């Protein structure tokens, strides 16, 4: 069996390392179990400390982290060309050139607004850390904090949640969770502000998933990476998570 010094060296280098040998040591060592819990609390603090607030407006060079600025995630609002032009001087220039090229080409085609699925997939690209396969659950206080703002709690039936973040999505803060399943991590976004009339399957940019309606509470998006992902299995995860949600407001 792995000794304590080697275990602690490993977890200090990578607390999320899913190595089964580490898991076994953690489960059986009376000192390393509590040590790991303390380290995960430290890790949670480190994660929050690194996420400094930065200005949503690229032109606003002063005042990072002050209360006068929007949280950094405000920059991840849904893409609207006009808003983008207002906010980003450099992008406006590039966008103008692009727009001019189309007009010169003789035709202006207004692309359809991005679908809900496309927005979910775009959001995924911003959080690759969420996709780690791990057996280390997110600290329960952190999970509760993320869920609290959306007025819900999650029962154990949802499975082990390894990642929880409150994300800006389409102008609202929503829970972004990762549930570990037998076939790997599945991302769950609780979209309380986005209503869909019926379940929708999607397959975009290397992600496959479903968006299912949640009566009175918007919708739930569940997706995994990989073009060979089993959509029926994803739907089962969605169903399990939905059954485990307890709405508190």
């Amino acid at each position, binding site marked *: 069996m792995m000794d*304590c*010094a*080697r275990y*602690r*060296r*490993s977890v*200090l*280098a*990578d607390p999320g390392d899913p190595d089964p040998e580490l898991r076994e040591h953690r489960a059986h060592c009376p*000192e390393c179990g509590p*040590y790991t819990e*303390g380290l995960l609390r*430290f890790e949670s*603090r*480190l*994660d*929050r*400390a*690194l*996420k*400094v*607030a*930065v200005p949503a407006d*690229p032109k606003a*060079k002063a005042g*990072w*982290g*002050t209360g006068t600025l929007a949280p*950094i*995630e405000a*920059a*991840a609002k*849904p*893409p609207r*060309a006009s808003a*983008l032009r207002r906010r980003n001087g*450099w*992008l406006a220039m*590039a*966008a103008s050139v*692009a727009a001019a090229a*189309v007009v010169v080409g003789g*035709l202006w*085609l207004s*692309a359809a607004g*991005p679908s809900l699925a*496309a927005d979910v*997939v*775009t*959001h*995924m*690209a*911003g959080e*690759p*850390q969420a996709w*780690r396969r791990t057996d280390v659950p997110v600290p329960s206080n952190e999970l509760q904090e993320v869920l609290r703002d959306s007025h819900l709690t999650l029962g154990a039936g949802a499975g082990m949640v390894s990642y929880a973040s409150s994300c800006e999505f389409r102008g609202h803060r929503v829970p972004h969770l990762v549930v570990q399943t037998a076939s790997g991590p599945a991302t769950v976004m609780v979209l309380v502000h986005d209503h869909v009339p019926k379940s929708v399957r999607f397959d975009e*940019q*290397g*992600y496959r998933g479903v968006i299912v309606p949640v009566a009175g509470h918007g919708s739930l998006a569940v997706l995994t*990476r990989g073009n060979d992902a089993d959509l029926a299995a994803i739907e089962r995860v969605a169903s399990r998570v939905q059954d485990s949600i307890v709405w508190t407001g």
Partner: protein
Amino acid sequence: MKDQVGGNRKRSRFEALCQTLRPDLLRFAFWLSRDRALAEDVVQETMLRAWKAQDSLLDEAAAKPWFLTIVRREFARSFERKRFVTVDVDELVAREEPMLAAAEEQDLAEMRAALFKLPDEYREPLVMQVLMGFSTADIARELGLSGAAVLTRLFRARKQLRVLCGEDTKLDPQE
């Protein structure tokens, strides 16, 4: 006409990608440089270069490391363009004090000040791992190091950080 529609969609998706990734890239640049103004400049230049080179991004899932590589190159270029004077860490902490003190909780402010004091070679892989979500292999590839070297740096980074933050390190292992 089909090509124009496809082009518009592609541009729109790229804009969305930039908007999504910009916050973490700014944070990464900030922790790399420990300087807000420089981080802004580096990310602005990164976005411009990314925009021009967007056709070389073949897989959106790989967007984050792609952008991060550009940020790191831009940061290196900024050193080529300017001659930076050596700055004392305490001066850096004092200069960025408004941001550090903006933390709602005192322990976060302490952690941020401690991060400022970490040597660059430890801080960078740590930020790549925790903030950017990179695996050891990703970090090794980006920094041109072996996996073992990355793990050693990450181990030393957390060990030093825990001491700087006044954590109970009795059970922390020696090297």
